[in-house]
């Protein structure tokens, strides 16, 4: 997978945190310390359900001081791909999984003067790590944590112990809601707000911030992360006379390489232009994820960058 380096891990502990949230403690199979990470980062977990591979991103809660383990928190969601269901029903202590290196799309702004952390439900997982880092740095911060009811607050005890009255709880069943009009006024210049949680909550908080005159640069959010990879499809390499399958967990370029064809590449990240390939025809819609081709070239459907782009559909025929 072009997403990054993979680390095989063993589940060392599973904890039922609430009725719908489980926490997993993971250790590297090699026994080596796991890589350090910056607060807000996630890993993509690969699960193998009898040959059917699923990949879901989960925020990292913390890393043991000696680096021996990571913790992730998983909410059971009725989601069609079934990753969280698999984690809840099938993954036990002793089982093996594979995780990627940490990736951070929700970092703390290090130049910020103060940080307002807003979490709803399972959105607490990256916020938990951010709060710990801010505390370590003796930075100025507040945590606003919304949940359905006390029993569904998966992290209340740990958070309270670490952060005391910097933590404010909001319970739906008590008609308590995080309200922008209460937390935003009178914050010092250079304050940043970070929100993670259900879609509706994020939208409301961001809108409230903008309405209150906050700059976009000071408002940060992480939505439920999209699953990595994409849907599978077939690729026909016309000149080589080869047809191959592109699995959901691999890139088009990787599938071409696996089929034994030496295709050009350099950056494998959609920037250098080396892997540009002519599209002969396609049955489906091209999903362009590169920064190299122009919008017109994307729209023309005549070219594809094989390192990051793919097809949503049945079959793609390439001039390779």
């Amino acid at each position, binding site marked *: 997978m072009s997403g990054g380096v993979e680390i095989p891990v063993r589940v060392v502990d599973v904890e039922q945190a609430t009725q719908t949230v489980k926490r997993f403690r993971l250790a590297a199979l090699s026994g080596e310390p796991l890589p350090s*990470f*910056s607060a807000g980062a996630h890993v993509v977990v690969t699960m193998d359900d009898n040959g059917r591979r699923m990949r879901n991103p989960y925020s990292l809660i913390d890393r043991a001081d000696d680096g021996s383990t990571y913790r992730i928190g998983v909410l059971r969601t009725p989601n069609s791909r079934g990753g969280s269901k698999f984690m809840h029903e099938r993954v036990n202590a002793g089982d093996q999984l594979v995780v990627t290196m940490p990736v951070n799309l929700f970092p703390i702004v290090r130049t910020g003067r103060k940080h307002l952390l807003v979490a709803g439900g399972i959105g607490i997982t990256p916020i938990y790590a951010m709060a710990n880092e801010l505390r370590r740095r003796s930075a100025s911060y507040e945590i606003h944590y919304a949940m359905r009811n006390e029993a569904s607050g998966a992290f209340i005890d740990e958070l309270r112990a670490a952060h005391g009255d910097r933590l404010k709880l909001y319970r739906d069943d008590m008609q308590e809601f995080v309200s922008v009009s209460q937390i935003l006024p009178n914050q010092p210049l250079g304050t940043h707000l970070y929100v993670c949680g259900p879609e509706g909550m994020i939208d409301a908080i961001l809108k409230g911030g903008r309405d209150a005159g906050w700059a976009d640069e000071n408002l940060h959010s992480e939505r439920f992360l999209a699953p990595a990879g994409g849907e599978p499809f077939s690729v026909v390499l016309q000149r080589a006379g080869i047809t191959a399958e592109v699995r959901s967990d691999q890139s088009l370029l990787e599938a071409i390489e696996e089929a034994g064809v030496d295709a050009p590449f350099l950056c494998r990240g959609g920037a250098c*232009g080396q892997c540009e390939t002519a599209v002969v025809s396609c049955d489906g819609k091209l999903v362009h994820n590169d920064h190299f081709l122009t919008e017109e070239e994307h729209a023309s459907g005549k070219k594809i960058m094989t390192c990051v782009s793919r097809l949503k559909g049945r079959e793609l025929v390439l001039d390779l």
Partner: protein
Amino acid sequence: MTIQFKTETFRDDFTFSNSPEAIHRFPFPFDKDEYMYAVNIEQHMPGPVKSAFEFPIDIDEHYVSEMKDRALVLKQDPLRCQSLPHMITAEWDLLELLMESMAKNYPEHFTLTRDGDSWHWVNGPLGIDQKFTFGDTSTLPYPPMEYITRQCQGDFNLIDQRNDNLWMDAGIVTTQADWSLDFDIGMNFMEWHAPVPLAHDIGVFDRALKFLLNLQQGRPVRRLNWTMTINPRLDTSPENYHKWGVDRTTVTPENVGNKVHLRVELQALWRLPRSNAIVFSIRAYLIKMEELVTIPKWGRRFHRVLRDLKPELADYKGLTRYRQMTVDYLSKFDDGAPTSPGFFPD
């Protein structure tokens, strides 16, 4: 593999030179007979044994003398090393990256022992033996970035990422090709690249920035950049222009092979783990024309590249004054034979 470190200078009497092995491993930057800016980024994977790409951090025969030269520059101009306060975590990340990499790949020369936060670093060539607490600046004689980069070849920038841009918020820069950290510190990617000609128009920096914003931990990348320098001088900074600018007028047809150097920068970028910052390393390699032409393919190719280089690039790189004389010299080593694709000697 024990490296024989040379004693040589990069100023005054300029005794620097390359051994035949060093010539052979020189990171020649042209894979074709022509050159233009491009997003020439590739994964920083281990390259051929003994090449400059074999290890993530390359230490070579010039190590000890380069570190002496750096100490001299810093003594005269402490502003060559600067770090904004929010970069301290990135400094520790950098220290870890460099110590781990040097100790792993050059165990004859460097060792690192870690016991939790208690670290023990031994640098044989520079005679340093240091016990310290990782994360506690008061246990080192310098702040972490300065401490380790006084012991590692190459300039380093620490880049913060925020607001979908990259910010040059720390660095140590003593071997630069005419740009200044003191001037660029606090600037963003587009601002510090503003002086570069042509590349903006063809979208090089837009694409490079988007790529770097997605750079991932554990997947470093590299690129090569090049310019030319008169005499083997590492410190060609704007701050010291009065010392080296005039060197360009001293090139004659008699001394061109000895005085004119190709200067190649092996630049690598890593996403750092604790800080989410990026480190940008700029490792400069120098080779004089007389040494370069001992590799026939390189002599032929560099002749063609330099002869056909766009004038905007030649001006920006400061070659205009001695370019023709160098082309004339190199033409004697170009018989017009075709060159093979790729960087490496035949």
